[in-house]
């Protein structure tokens, strides 16, 4: 068989690349190691975690706010088995959707491990061994949870995000190593179900890549859920017995602590996954972090081979991979697309949600850029009070001289959806006043964005 393009990996980067290639008239094949398409995002990442986050959020509301809303029910009982079953249904429906999209776009799907024989030949090792001749190759093999050398992931007590999405019981005390996005999201799931959560984070803030205000606010909000935090703590030992995990950590000041729990979630990040791909056969190098090296066109040192998504540098985000998939497909046919990496938003699906785009205040300070800040709290919003979602704020950073929006950071209900407005504004290089002068429907959460922009413009919010 011979193709114009072969995509290895069917996650959001790979399948989007394949569809865009097919749309552009290229004969396209996609290779997936697992039985279902969709990669980490659909199977063990974004989608299943959101399914559990939504279920547990409902449960949490039933426990905490229904009474205030005037809904009297018996004390609700969490059925984790049902939650996980529902999640599996959501995952299956979404993965089936990808199967449909492949058929619709006449993309040939191969199941098996794809590896290079040479730069134009891919071996698919599945139920049978097949060989694909191809003009171009897109590596989209994604990433795997990473760990520390001294931690043994037994997948029973010491687990990764993959196992955390299918636990059989609600943990009594889950120790989470790493206060990043994954740790905070999965911690929220179990905190809402009653687990005690202890987050051990090496840095001095949770979600450390985001604006510091966001980390601080999220820490406050999750503390209410029963999270405990050990910030600036370095884990140096994880011991397991049949029913217990003991995590030992040391603070930057040298104080040693020992935390005992029944589960330990290791969520210190993910690493690029290229095992068995045979990069050595074609001479493509990887960097220290194991990532495939690419140029600005996402092309490897072998000109007909491209790489996208988690397997290359940059934020490990599904939507970043999707943009890259599109970019490569269009580049292959000679178009000249461009990605503005600064404007790829980051989102944390806790409740309140956190979403952010552009520069953080810390980055602007470090760059010595003259900026101004405007923020507006959710609790001053009529809409937020009506729904009892008053935790959160919108923070807008703008250039001190030109008023151009340089960053938008939101923590609060529906932040994940609202951040798109920030991306749009910033793609057009809107000023804070531009957004402040646009009509925002009332009553909505988006009014907080408008008010924060008013505050950034010349500190003249209306409702505070």
């Amino acid at each position, binding site marked *: 068989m011979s193709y114009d393009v072969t995509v290895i990996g069917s996650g959001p980067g790979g399948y989007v690349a394949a569809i865009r290639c097919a749309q552009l008239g290229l004969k396209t094949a996609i290779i997936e190691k697992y039985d279902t398409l969709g990669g980490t995002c659909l199977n063990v990442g974004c989608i299943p975690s959101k399914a559990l986050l939504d279920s547990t959020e409902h449960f949490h509301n039933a426990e905490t706010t229904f009474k205030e809303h005037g809904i009297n029910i018996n004390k609700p009982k969490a059925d984790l088995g049902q939650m996980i079953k529902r999640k599996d249904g959501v995952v299956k429906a979404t993965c089936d959707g990808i199967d449909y999209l492949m058929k619709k776009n006449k993309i040939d799907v191969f199941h098996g491990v794809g590896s290079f024989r040479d730069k134009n030949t891919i071996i698919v090792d599945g139920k049978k061994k097949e060989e694909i001749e191809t003009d*171009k190759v897109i590596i989209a093999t994604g990433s795997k949870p990473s760990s520390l050398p001294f931690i043994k992931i037994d997948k029973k007590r010491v687990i990764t995000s993959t196992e955390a999405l299918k636990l059989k019981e609600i943990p009594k005390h889950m120790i989470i190593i790493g206060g990043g996005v994954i740790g905070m999201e999965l911690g929220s799931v179990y905190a809402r179900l009653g687990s005690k959560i202890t987050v051990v984070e090496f840095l001095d803030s949770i979600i450390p890549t985001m604006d510091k205000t966001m980390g601080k606010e999220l820490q406050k909000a999750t503390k209410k859920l029963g999270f405990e935090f050990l910030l600036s703590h370095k884990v140096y030992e994880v011991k397991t017995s049949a029913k217990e995990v003991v995590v030992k950590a040391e603070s930057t000041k040298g104080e040693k602590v020992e935390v005992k729990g029944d589960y330990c979630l290791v969520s210190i990040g993910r690493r690029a996954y290229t095992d068995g791909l045979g990069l050595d056969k074609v001479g493509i190098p990887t960097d220290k972090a194991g990532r495939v090296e690419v*140029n600005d066109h996402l092309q490897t040192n072998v000109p007909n081979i491209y790489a996208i998504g988690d397997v290359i540098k940059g934020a490990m985000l599904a939507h970043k991979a999707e943009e890259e998939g599109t970019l490569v497909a269009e580049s292959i046919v*000679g178009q000249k697309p461009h990605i503005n990496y600064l404007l790829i938003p980051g989102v944390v699906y806790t409740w309140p949600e956190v979403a952010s785009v552009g520069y953080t205040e810390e980055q602007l300070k470090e760059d010595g850029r003259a900026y101004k800040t405007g923020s507006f709290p959710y609790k001053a919003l009529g809409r937020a009070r009506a729904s009892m979602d008053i935790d959160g704020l919108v923070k807008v950073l703008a250039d001190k001289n030109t008023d151009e929006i340089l960053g938008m950071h939101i923590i609060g209900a529906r932040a994940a959806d609202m951040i798109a407005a920030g991306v749009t504004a910033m793609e*057009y*290089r809107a000023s804070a006043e531009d957004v402040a002068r646009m009509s925002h429907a009332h009553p909505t959460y988006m009014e907080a964005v408008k008010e924060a922009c008013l505050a950034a413009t010349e500190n003249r919010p209306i409702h505070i």
Partner: protein
Amino acid sequence: MSLAMKVPAVGESITEVTISQWLKKDGDIVEMDEVICELESDKATFELTAEAAGKLIVKAEEGDTLEIGAVICEIDDSAAPKKDEPKEEKTEKTESKPEATGEVHEMKVPAVGESITEVTISSWMKNDGDVVALDEPIAEIESDKATFELTAEVAGKLQILAKEGDTLEIGAPICKIEVMEGVSASDAPSSSSSSEEKSSADSTSSDSYAAGHPSPAAAKILSEKGIDPSDVKGTGKDGRITKEDAEAAQKQTTQKTASESQPASTDSSERGQRREKMTSLRKTISKRLVSVKNETAMLTTFNEVNMKPIMDIRSKYKEKFKEKYEVGLGFMSFFTKACCIALQEWPAVNGQIDDEEMVYSDYCDVSIAVSTPRGLVVPVIRNAEKLSFEGIEKEIIRLATRARDGKLSIDEMQGGTFTITNGGIFGSMLSTPIINAPQSAILGMHNIVQRPIAENGEVVIRPVMYLALSYDHRIIDGRESVSFLVRVKELLEDPTRLLIGI
């Protein structure tokens, strides 16, 4: 990835082309739409433009003859130039800062074409005091025939002498340039890319930081067209470049390539020779000219024309004509008209020999010789006998523009019955033109010179043009040719005859 570029279909009945010249070398980084190569068919020369930006991989040598559809080169767009990567040529040139040499060069209105005596400055593309590079377009000049760009004759600081809208005679000073050394195009800020100038020159576009910022879709389109966003005027809020702006944007014409492609002038103290391959256009021209000389019985008859009456009519009606028809009243319409009348009276001059037969046409398809950078071309004014003065002038402008841009189709150059050529634009007093085969006669116009002539027994000074008619004696007798030329003279010296047909 590499994009293979193939020889495009350039015209019916053309099956192969020859590569006359590579304007870019193997390994050069080329921009999209940049002219990379000159191709020739036996009929005309074409420019091949890059279909993508990137590194050029030449697949065929100069002189190679390729079939339509054959791969001529590849462009590796992975090597497309990046913004922040200064091009080689720029770095070379910008090493030295421009330095004034103290010399001031005066630029005059150049002789721009057939019988054009004056031009109007339609716009200055540079401001007074701007630093301009050699061959950089500095002004747009309009004659009654066409608009063209005036390019800087030396590099340096511009001093404008004539304002926009001024009408100047050929040879009148138009600007001065204080000669500076080491000026490159990158030193000379172009009025479109300099935001400072923009804000001072154009008060409507605000000085917003976002002016010229392309939307995501616009950025992609511009990138694919190879256009720098700074060359596009944004119509969006605060001067942002919208998708529509990007779609409408056109690449600045590759003005530079013409000058760049010229061989570097050799040092005057050295003696040298240069050998160039004949282009196939040049080969075709030479073959045909020699065969005309060999196969026809060609000779030339002369006469002279007092141009005063026509010049009087022109100066009297020039403005009104232009106002009404939006085209200048030139000499060519008078000559074409006069020839058409004379051709119909002396059909042999309009005829041609086809093997053992003689063909006479009752229409006059007049070929006009136009000099282009690639050589002489002769587009045809069809049914010139039926056209008004206005119609002729407009057709000439259309054909001359297309000729200059190298866009003439083969149809537009074939099938004339008679040719007019004007050596006068280059200053020729008298010449014996060669017939444009298979036609039988050609009229040569020459320069207009104030000469003493006898009028009613008195010596007077009149603007006089000598006319030459070369003809094929095999089909045209002396009586016919001479009478034809006398008739043309009569009609030109007394243009009222054109009106009443006497």
